[in-house]
């Protein structure tokens, strides 16, 4: 497919929020270490790529599976990178104020993160909403923003830079496993149902001359949805398992006589 290269869309509006984020991060966390800055850069890069690469174009009403990849990048990878990019000390100071502390505490409540993270997946895959956000750019922007925000809320109880907001590692694993079951269910439904989950992708309008190519490649709408469901299901769960491994590592690596467990409460 030689047109794949032509699907890059460098005029995407994503540059604007990306620039703002970069500016904000460099101002607030001037003294962030290099690895953290790199993590931030990675998140930013993924964010931009999710829109300007051919993935972004295909996600825009052509391929449900491409939409799902974009969705996962926005909901899981970008927020995770941002979370890891937050330097503990400065963030600690930010959350020292009572109001901020209260917000941090609410976000640390596992039910909140779980509901937001898994809820965002479910909510935006109600057929009418899914179609609407694909066909209408404004709703689409709301959706994408909510993905990143929900993702941040989701990772907060696990990888928050401030220790007191983090769950105990074993509770964190339970949290991740529960979320995994949440997206597994949705993934199973999307994979095996014969109903079109997102009607906007079932009858794509030919605007950029790719539909025929996609069909020829075997990516008919039913195959596409099948693939989308599997994407929603297996990669997030794998990521959650990897995060669980990180938590286990932290747990076993806990310094002797650590008081972290008591502190976390």
């Amino acid at each position, binding site marked *: 497919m030689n047109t794949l290269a032509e699907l890059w869309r460098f005029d995407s509006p994503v540059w604007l929020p990306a620039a703002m984020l970069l500016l904000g991060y460099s101002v607030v966390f001037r003294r962030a270490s290099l690895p953290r800055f790199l993590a931030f850069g990675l998140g930013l890069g993924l964010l931009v790529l999710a829109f300007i690469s051919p993935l972004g174009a295909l996600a825009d009403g052509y391929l449900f599976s491409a939409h799902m990849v974009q969705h996962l990048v926005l909901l899981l990878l970008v927020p995770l990178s941002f979370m890891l990019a937050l330097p503990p000390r400065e963030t600690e100071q930010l959350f020292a104020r009572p109001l901020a502390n209260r917000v941090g505490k609410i976000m640390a409540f596992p039910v909140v993160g779980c509901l937001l993270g898994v809820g965002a997946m479910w909510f935006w895959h109600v057929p009418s909403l899914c179609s609407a956000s694909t066909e209408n750019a404004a709703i689409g922007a709301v959706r994408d923003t909510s993905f990143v925000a929900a993702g941040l809320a989701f990772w907060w109880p696990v990888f928050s830079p401030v220790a007191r907001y983090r769950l105990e590692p074993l509770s964190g694993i339970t949290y991740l496993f529960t979320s995994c079951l949440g997206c597994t269910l949705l993934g199973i439904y999307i994979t095996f149902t*014969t109903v079109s989950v997102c009607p906007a992708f079932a009858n794509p309008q030919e605007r950029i001359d790719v539909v025929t190519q996609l069909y020829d490649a*075997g990516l*008919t709408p*039913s*195959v596409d949805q*099948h693939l989308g469901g599997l994407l929603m299901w297996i990669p997030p769960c794998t990521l959650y398992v990897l995060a669980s491994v990180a938590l286990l590592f932290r747990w076993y690596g806990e310094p002797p006589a650590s008081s972290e467990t008591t502190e976390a409460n």
Partner: protein
Amino acid sequence: MQSVFPVLEPESPQARAIYDLLLTVSLICGVIFLITTGLLLIAIWTGRKRRDLPRQDFGSHRKELAWMVAPVIVTLWITAITIKLILTISAVPEAHPGLPEGKQADLIVRGHQWYWEVQYPDTNVIDAGEIHIPIGKPLYVQLESADVIHCFWVPQLARKIDVIPGRQNYIWLEADKPGTYQGRCAEFCGTQHAWMNFLVIAHTEDDYAKWLAGKDADAEKPKVTDEEAGERLFFTEQTCVNCHAIQGTTATADIGPNLTHVARRKQLGGGILENSTENLALWLKNPQAIKPGCKMPNFKLTDEQVRQLVAYLESLP
């Protein structure tokens, strides 16, 4: 001559691709086995006579990570070649049930407890127990089940695939050269699962056309007395017609195998008997003694009735 290791003697491009993968993966697994067992044996051998208290070694993350890398790379490699082959073999758009648009199946194979029924869509031919195909041409086969789940497996020619009631599955079936290939039901499907074998018989293009033309004919009116008596038995005096079909006659039931071409088959009863006049008689005399639990009851036919029925069945085209 029947092949001894059908899985290792592929006779179609698809089976050969699977065989190559099998070989590669077995080789990798063999090497892994030798390495792990070798290390273990060395550890045991060197430790067998040690009598001083060994150093208490609690492990090292570095070593653990190091030996994790190798298996990860190996599994990634196996996964990659696996995925490649899955996508090649499934290249027909068969992800979701339903025939791809404009594509008509070349063959319809229907699993029954405990025999296989074969339909050649463009002709009248319906047969049981053996599938005739032309060589060198991939046939698109539609698989259905009349009752429970079966599994269609011709190791030398294609992957196996389940045959499931309520849905259709599709595979490509192809043979490189003429011959007879053993097929079996691989999914447990009840009492006589063991005898649900079938044969795939590959012909050259010409032979296939000849064979098909020969089969595509209706039953003629019997001429000899025994045959006539057998026909009477089949249609009126006994209940054969309630279960079996014969093309060109009023017999159309689909409970037992279609008997139009029964005389030409190589095997009877899903492979339990070679087909011959004596064996057909033996079968009719008491099917339950030969294939206990099969759907055909013992009709307690007299020897004469058996002879007449055999004569009739063997007179069919």
